[in-house]
């Protein structure tokens, strides 16, 4: 079981779908030889010629390859060459979707689908690297790249922040506004929440790439909402780590918004914002008490498609995994449980699984019914997954917790979280 929970190293290739011309390659430092790239494309093309779609394969040594063609124009291939790697098809598939979304966000769909000059497309694609690399590295400390649910930070009193955001957004001639702390959504306007969840995740990731600067005006295309018409993402760093974003049209200019609106609406809230920054390690209000045996958790609201995740910070007693490892374990367990039992959340009706992917056949899931709970025991930790109509909870605990107690700890944690935060 232990080998299963080891992350591998990833390689990402992008080619034109029709002619197989390599467009870019990202990931581990040494580049794959051209012959390998050619073969990976060739074997996919061979399948195509036989009327079959090659979707993924596993090598003898445990490596994995996943192919996907987007809009019949661009082929993305993810390769995980690590021996005994734990990387699941699901993770690689998510990586390909996220990569495509990054490309659309920066360049727009038209430029990708109707590219006439390959050399120019290659050059333009360079502007996507920063965002794509962020997803290759695991998109910071969130889980949104995997869950496609917006990573949130829950604050005790969101009221004043929500109010300031709503009025600020309105004053910026927009309906789409969002406040992020360390890349996690604290409050957002109603319209922002109506963006596709992947878009919310993508925009949060984009903001992470700006970390050092004070304000930005970035043209963005929304992969679902506006793939061909660019919008402007204005982002203001109110405090280091606290970013305010609005999506708007031609007006106002960055300068106008910054000099006339930002201070007016946000200066009164500086202390509240500092309070949010203080919570950012935990993502939960201080009033929420977690059982001492909870090393980390991921809670997903299935209806609103929002998620909150946390790992216990600070000194690790011997024998317990360190915080970074806890995060990794939670990610791996999410993939494990979501793909095998609970079903990853896709947009649409809860419980309807994998509707977007006709290549996934029912039998691979193995069940005719919907499992509600699952657990996993390794030499390193114990994990429990729990599903209700409204929520999914993934809980990480030390080995010392008796297996029979996992379920009650998980149910109690879920009700404690939901009742105290209303999440």
């Amino acid at each position, binding site marked *: 079981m232990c080998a299963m929970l080891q992350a591998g190293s990833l390689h990402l290739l992008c080619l034109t779908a029709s002619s197989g011309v390599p467009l870019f390659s990202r990931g581990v430092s040494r580049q794959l030889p051209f012959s390998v790239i050619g073969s990976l494309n060739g074997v996919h093309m061979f399948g195509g010629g036989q009327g079959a779609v090659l979707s993924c394969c596993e090598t003898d040594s445990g490596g994995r390859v996943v192919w996907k063609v987007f809009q019949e124009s661009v082929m993305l291939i993810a390769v995980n060459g690590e021996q005994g790697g734990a990387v699941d098809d699901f993770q690689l598939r998510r990586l390909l979707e996220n990569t495509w979304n990054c490309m659309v966000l*920066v360049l727009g769909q038209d430029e990708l689908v109707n590219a006439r000059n390959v050399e120019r497309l290659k*050059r*333009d694609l*360079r*502007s*996507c*690297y*920063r965002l794509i*690399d962020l997803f290759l590295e695991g998109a910071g400390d969130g889980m949104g790249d995997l869950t496609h649910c917006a990573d949130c930070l829950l604050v005790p009193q969101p009221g004043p922040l929500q109010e300031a955001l709503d009025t600020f957004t309105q004053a910026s001639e927009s309906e789409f506004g969002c406040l992020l702390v360390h890349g996690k959504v604290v409050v957002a306007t109603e319209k922002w929440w109506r963006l596709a969840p992947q878009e919310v995740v993508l925009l949060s990731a984009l903001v992470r*790439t*700006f970390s*050092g*600067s*004070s*304000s*930005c*005006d*970035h*043209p963005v295309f929304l992969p679902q909402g506006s793939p061909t018409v*660019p919008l*402007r*993402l204005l982002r*203001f*760093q*109110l*405090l*280091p780590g*606290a970013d305010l974003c609005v999506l708007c049209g*031609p007006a106002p*200019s*960055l*300068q106008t918004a*910054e*000099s006339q609106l*930002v*201070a007016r609406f*946000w*200066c009164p809230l*500086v202390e509240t*914002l500092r309070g949010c920054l203080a919570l950012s390690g935990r993502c939960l209000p201080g009033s929420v008490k977690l059982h001492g045996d909870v090393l980390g958790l991921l809670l997903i609201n299935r209806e609103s498609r929002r998620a909150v995740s946390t790992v216990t910070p600070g000194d690790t007693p011997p024998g317990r995994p360190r915080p970074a490892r806890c995060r990794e374990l939670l990610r791996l367990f999410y993939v494990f449980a979501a793909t095998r039992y609970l079903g990853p959340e896709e947009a649409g009706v809860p419980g309807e699984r994998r509707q977007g992917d006709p290549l996934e056949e029912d039998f691979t899931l193995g069940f005719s019914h919907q499992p509600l709970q699952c657990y996993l025991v390794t030499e390193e930790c114990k994990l429990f997954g729990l599903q209700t109509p409204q929520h999914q909870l993934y809980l990480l605990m030390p080995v010392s917790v008796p297996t029979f107690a996992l379920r009650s700890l998980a149910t109690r944690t879920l009700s404690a979280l939901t009742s105290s935060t209303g999440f």
Partner: protein
Amino acid sequence: MIKSRGSAELEASFTMIPPQPPGSLILIDWYRSADSKEYFNRIKNKKQRRRFGLLEAPVLPPHLSVDTVRYKVFISGKSGVGKTALAARLSGLDIPNMHYETTGIESTVVFWPVKLRDNGQVLFFRLQLWDCGENALRRFDHLLPSCKEQVDAILFLFSFTDRASFEDLSNQIARSSEPSDSVVKLIVGTKFDLFMHADVTDQDVRKFQEVWGLPVFRMGADVVGAFGEVAPLLNALAESLWHQDCMMVGAARPSPATGGPGPRPGV
């Protein structure tokens, strides 16, 4: 040759501006002196530069209270010359170890204390550096006007390792400024430390300076942290901006009572 068509008139107008000798308005070496410590400590956090959000500014005790003057500075230059790296360097942020294209406008705020030579008054310059990727500028028409809106100074960058970027300077200047505007213009040559790969010679630079009458600064990739490597450029920028403001209000010397030469909203 770096001359391009239609730039002769532009050149002529630049050589007309009387250059003020460095250090005539501000104390160039002040950052080294003991009495500047109290001010410079406000923009430091231990060994590193302090980061300020838009809602923040250096906090000084009441007896040191100083005025802040705000300026917008646009960084212009060919793709890959190091615009983002320069902004990071001047603001004391970590310089990205990998080159990524900037896909829109990114602005960075730098606070820099300056002591005026004339009356010993200390001012905090709040320089907002605007940096925009060249490819984004090409693809989206609204970005360049936004960068030029109410701009006070432009840094034109070229890389010592990329001759084309040096030859592109006249286009950059023509694109971003008018001969008659009152925008402060400085030239910055980046990657000066990579002399093994230098593609632009000292003679080229001297010739350029003679023709255009614009000061040229050289930036390498020294260790971040000390002020010494950014002080010459920041002081020159601050002094030129101050000079420009003094010219604008028609007074050679600002009034100490108001703390600034002209009205600057939003201080």
